[in-house]
């Protein structure tokens, strides 16, 4: 299967990533009572092997929150933290890192950030999107990201990575916020924006 996204489509996806992660940043700021800076969101269309490299070192131990989104478009929302980043975020929230409560707090952050980003996408596109309960993992970055990409875009040679960095003011707990739609999910998003069909031949 050959997939190609043209510049106009990537611009539109970048805009979606920007609005989605902007909403996520606002939600995180409200939750923490601190300002959260959003680094320029990217929409990258990359060969699969490069997509993994773009996210980080494959065997780096990483704390992640995975949220699957079903409904009209399938998307995986991924929050990635360094171990120290996850720990300082837990401390900001007054819970013990790597405890049941700490994991539950990270999951809740994933829930709130994911739901606000997905809610914004749903509002922009008119798609019905259904976030599922989040899962917290402590594992190798590559194992988490490659497993998600295998299931979402494994059959294509192209991964669409929508990501942004969120930096919390006065605390070393930045996180990467990724939206990884399936190829069908990208088609749905683009279709609703009037940019579907001819450019992206996902099927």
């Amino acid at each position, binding site marked *: 299967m050959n997939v190609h996204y043209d510049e106009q489509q990537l611009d539109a996806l970048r805009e979606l990533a920007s609005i989605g992660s902007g909403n996520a940043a606002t939600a995180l700021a409200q939750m923490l009572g601190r300002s959260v800076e959003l680094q320029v969101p990217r929409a990258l269309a990359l060969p699969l092997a490069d997509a993994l490299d773009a996210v980080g070192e494959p065997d780096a131990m990483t704390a992640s929150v995975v949220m*699957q989104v079903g409904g009209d478009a399938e998307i995986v929302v991924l929050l990635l933290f360094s171990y120290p980043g996850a720990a300082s975020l837990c401390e900001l929230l007054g819970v013990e890192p790597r405890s049941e409560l700490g994991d539950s707090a990270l999951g809740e952050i994933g829930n709130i950030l994911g739901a606000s980003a997905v809610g914004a996408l749903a509002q922009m596109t008119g798609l019905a999107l259904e976030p599922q309960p989040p*899962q917290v*993992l402590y*594992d*190798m970055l*590559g*194992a988490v*990201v*490659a*497993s998600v990409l295998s299931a979402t875009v494994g059959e294509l040679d192209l991964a669409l990575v929508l990501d942004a960095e969120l930096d919390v003011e006065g605390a070393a707990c930045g996180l990467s916020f990724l939206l990884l739609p399936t190829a069908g999910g990208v088609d749905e998003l683009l279709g609703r924006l009037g940019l579907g069909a001819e450019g992206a031949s996902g099927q």
Partner: protein
Amino acid sequence: MGELAVSAAAEDELVSMGLGSCVGVALVDRERGIAGLAHVMLPEANAAYSAPAKFADRAVPALLASTERLGARRERTVAVLAGGAQMFAGNGRTAGVAGLDLGARNEAAVRTALAEAGIPVRAAATGGDRGRTVRVCVGDARVTVKEAGGEEQSLWHPAAPADDLVEIS
């Protein structure tokens, strides 16, 4: 990810880092000092495709052909597997993304393809829910595996008796 590599150079090391649901398939002909490693992402190809190493049903024949081109003999070649974990809860049966957990299906497809090629699996560190990194030392034909958060451990080496099947999970 979705790639394969082969080598006959003793100083080379073939590595697949951060295998989750993906399966690292190592083929070793210890007598000739030839090894190959493929990073399989999906059980089977559903269309003509340019990157055979991604799919178990194509990766195994492609990897075998590549080691044979370097001079490996099929009847001496053995396989060592790592990966195929179930990273995510829900097994794809939730309302989320279908088929998010491919680990067990990947491993089964790799084993089927190896059986069809007549290649025995001598050691495997598969299943579970942790990521793994697998390394194949071409020179001494040793295979090691490191599980997320764990220590690197020996998975297979040439001195292992041929009928000694190693399973780490």
